[in-house]
């Protein structure tokens, strides 16, 4: 399998662990990610706030480059472009969709692109998030087959954040309110997954820079909830989520007088570990909250089952039946 | 072609949905291009492909067939029968060099006066862009040699 790869600014540096682990895992899975040559920033959430057309042109340059390069390498049709960063994924797919919806916008954007000798035909790329490719193209079975050091004993809170299944500018690969693909992936890796209620809530995004108080409260909620569920770590798939939860955890503790020490790792890092790669090979050590104590639990004797949350009713003869869910699945 | 070319569309409207939609558009005073000349049929399934060909040959620039939405046909699935015929007719018209926009099948429920009006407007614009069809003149208009020679002599 071969995909166009748009790493985005974060993966170059602050989320380099994501990139490193992804590349290591991809090699094991036999997936090829060909980086788009000379890509530029997607615009994040900032650019569009100031200049609409320039924001669309900025993102479209990447699409035009990716489409051209895919053509020249005789790729699949439509060529697939993978973004591991949720914000990049959203921006690129949103621009692609809006260009298709609005021919006027597309004309303007292409007029701007023409100044750089580029052109982009909306819809000529299929823009995918990395998680989508991993769980749907590679598939759980393939992954399960590579697991040789299962993450037994780990309690993981799977954290999707906002932009991966929301708002679904192109096809959706998971439920926007209650996604489960990362949960399932972590179970395949052998971990114990908690039913993390805030799995799609916001990490605060750029609010860490704009309104620290707002951001720290948002981060606190996530950490508290993960701690309430006795999660050993939070697994994420977005550099922004990782940065906010990891780098600002100490600030949260200061602000609220708490003492959370919940490591935040990328899902690719855990895949690497489960595939038997060394911690260094998957970029462990770059995180602010040291993951090693938590990782030491791997393979430890299975913890006694956590006491059921108090609010869940005990089953008794008096109890009323619970509603049945369509596809109740347990590993 | 000038933009003020006023195309003529023959509209086959089903009695139960689309004719009522057209009635509703009028009652709601929704203004749309006065290009569609209506023919009421009980159901789009009554529309014979020959009607369409006949209209095109007799000078229409386009033909609009409008019926109930799938699943809402008064006659259960007359509209799907129309769709089946229309699909094959489209392939035939393509071979005849008649642009897709000239013959259209649309669904308009009795409540969708606006949608029907929009369909007429949209089609009118599309036909304007395509220009007149004038089948007899432009397609069948070849003169016999004898007459051509005679005219050439008169003309000089």
């Amino acid at each position, binding site marked *: 399998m071969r995909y166009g790869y748009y790493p985005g600014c974060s993966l170059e540096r602050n989320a380099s662990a994501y990139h490193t682990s992804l590349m290591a895992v991809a090699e094991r899975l036999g997936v090829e990610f060909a980086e788009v040559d000379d890509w530029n920033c997607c615009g994040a959430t900032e650019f569009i706030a100031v200049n609409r057309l320039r924001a669309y042109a900025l993102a479209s340059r990447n699409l035009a480059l990716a489409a051209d390069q895919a053509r020249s390498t005789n790729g699949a049709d439509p060529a697939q472009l993978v973004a591991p960063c949720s914000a990049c994924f959203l921006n690129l797919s949103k621009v692609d969709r809006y260009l298709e919806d609005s021919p006027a916008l597309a004309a303007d954007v292409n007029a701007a692109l023409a100044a750089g000798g580029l052109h982009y035909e909306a819809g000529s790329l299929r823009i995918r998030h990395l998680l989508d490719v991993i769980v749907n193209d590679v598939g759980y079975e393939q992954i399960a087959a590579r697991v040789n050091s299962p993450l037994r004993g780990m309690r993981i809170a799977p954290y999707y954040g906002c932009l991966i299944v929301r708002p679904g500018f192109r096809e959706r690969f998971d439920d926007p309110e209650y996604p489960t693909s990362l949960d399932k992936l972590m179970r395949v890796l052998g971990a114990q997954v908690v039913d993390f209620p805030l799995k799609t809530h916001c990490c605060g995004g750029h609010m860490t820079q704009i309104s620290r108080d707002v951001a720290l409260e948002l981060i606190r909620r996530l950490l508290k909830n993960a701690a309430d569920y006795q999660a050993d770590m939070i697994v994420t798939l977005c550099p922004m989520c990782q940065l906010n939860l990891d780098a600002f955890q100490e600030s949260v503790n200061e602000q609220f007088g708490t003492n959370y020490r919940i490591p935040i790792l990328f899902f690719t890092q855990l895949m690497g570990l489960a595939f038997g790669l060394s911690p260094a090979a998957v970029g462990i050590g770059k995180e602010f909250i040291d993951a090693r104590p938590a990782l030491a639990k791997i393979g430890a004797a299975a913890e006694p089952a956590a006491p059921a949350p108090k609010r869940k009713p005990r089953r008794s003869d008096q109890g009323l039946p619970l509603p049945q869910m369509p596809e109740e699945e347990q590993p | 072609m000038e933009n003020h070319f006023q195309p003529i569309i023959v509209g086959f409207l089903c009695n139960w949905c689309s004719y009522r939609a057209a009635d509703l558009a009028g009652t709601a005073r929704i203004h749309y291009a006065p290009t569609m000349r209506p023919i009421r049929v009980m159901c789009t399934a009554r529309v014979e492909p020959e009607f369409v*060909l006949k209209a095109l040959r007799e000078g229409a620039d386009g033909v609009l067939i409008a019926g109930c939405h799938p699943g809402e046909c008064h006659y259960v699935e007359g509209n799907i029968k129309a769709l*089946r015929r229309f*699909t094959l007719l489209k392939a035939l018209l393509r071979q005849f060099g008649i642009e897709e926009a000239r013959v259209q099948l649309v669904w308009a429920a009795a409540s969708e006066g606006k949608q029907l009006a929009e369909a007429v407007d949209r089609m009118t614009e599309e036909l304007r862009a395509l220009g007149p069809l004038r*089948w007899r003149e432009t*397609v069948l208009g070849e003169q016999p040699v004898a007459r051509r020679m005679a005219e050439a002599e008169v003309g000089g």
Partner: protein
Amino acid sequence: MAKPTFAMYWAASCGGCEISLLNIGEKILDVDAAFQVVFWPCVADFKYSDVEGYPDGYIDLCLFNGAIRNSENEELAHLLRRKSKTLVAFGSCAYEGCAPGLANLTTNAATMRTIYTDCLTTDETRDRLPQPLSMVPEGEIRIPVLYETVRALDQVVPVDYIIPGCPPEAHQIAAVIQAVISGVPLPAPGGKVIGAGTVAVCEECPLAKNVKQITRFYRPYELVPEPGICLLEQGLVCMGPATRSGCGALCPQVGMRCEGCYGPLDGQDQGARMLSAIASVVAAGGPDQDEAEQEHAIAAVMDTLADPAGTFYRFSLAHSLLRRVRVAEPGT
């Protein structure tokens, strides 16, 4: 009393009609006995100037076969109309264009290209397109002008009767000739079809017919049909239902679909009628599907019907509602 005069002419056609007339067997002798042949270029040497020399209405019965493809066909149509009391469009070409009429699916330029330029067996080094005017030692030679649109005879001159078929069946010709000879009054002239049925071919077809549910179409080479069962039900585009009877349904009986050579029933457009009929019995796009799925399912079945125009209008294109295709090239 002098014998009635007889003429037969061969315009744009294959010549099969002439043979079919001879194919009536020993009855041809009756023709010879009953008629005085005054013009029949296929059989005897008559010149056009001979015909021009006849007084108007001199020919009692003129069988005209072939479509009007060029200026020579056109001139002869007018000439023979003038000289004939009864003009019969004989065979599918004169009646409705037939195979020559399929030229209306394209342009003369394209036809010429195919024949003289793109043809593999042609010497490509020389441009061998026919020239309207050539100079030879004996003088100049003009060839007739090819028309863009092939026409049926009745689109050029009024026709008294039509004998359909490609070619007309011998027994039908014989019956008409017999009627003329024996003086049985014919119906009032005016483009009436004689020598054929008034119902569709299915009437004569012995194959077992059932309700139809077509899920895909087959071209004849793609399917060996189940014997004894209606070919249409098996997905072969048998034109029988939309075609005039009279032939005895010979083709379907031997597993070959009816191609429609007897033309449409009175007042119909054969292609459009068949299209409507056949599309109606396509079993796709059920009510359980949503709109897009329905459209898709229907389109998928229709896609299996290759070349609808050529299939439905194989014989009747030149006489159909639209008659010919529209081409983008200006001036054609």
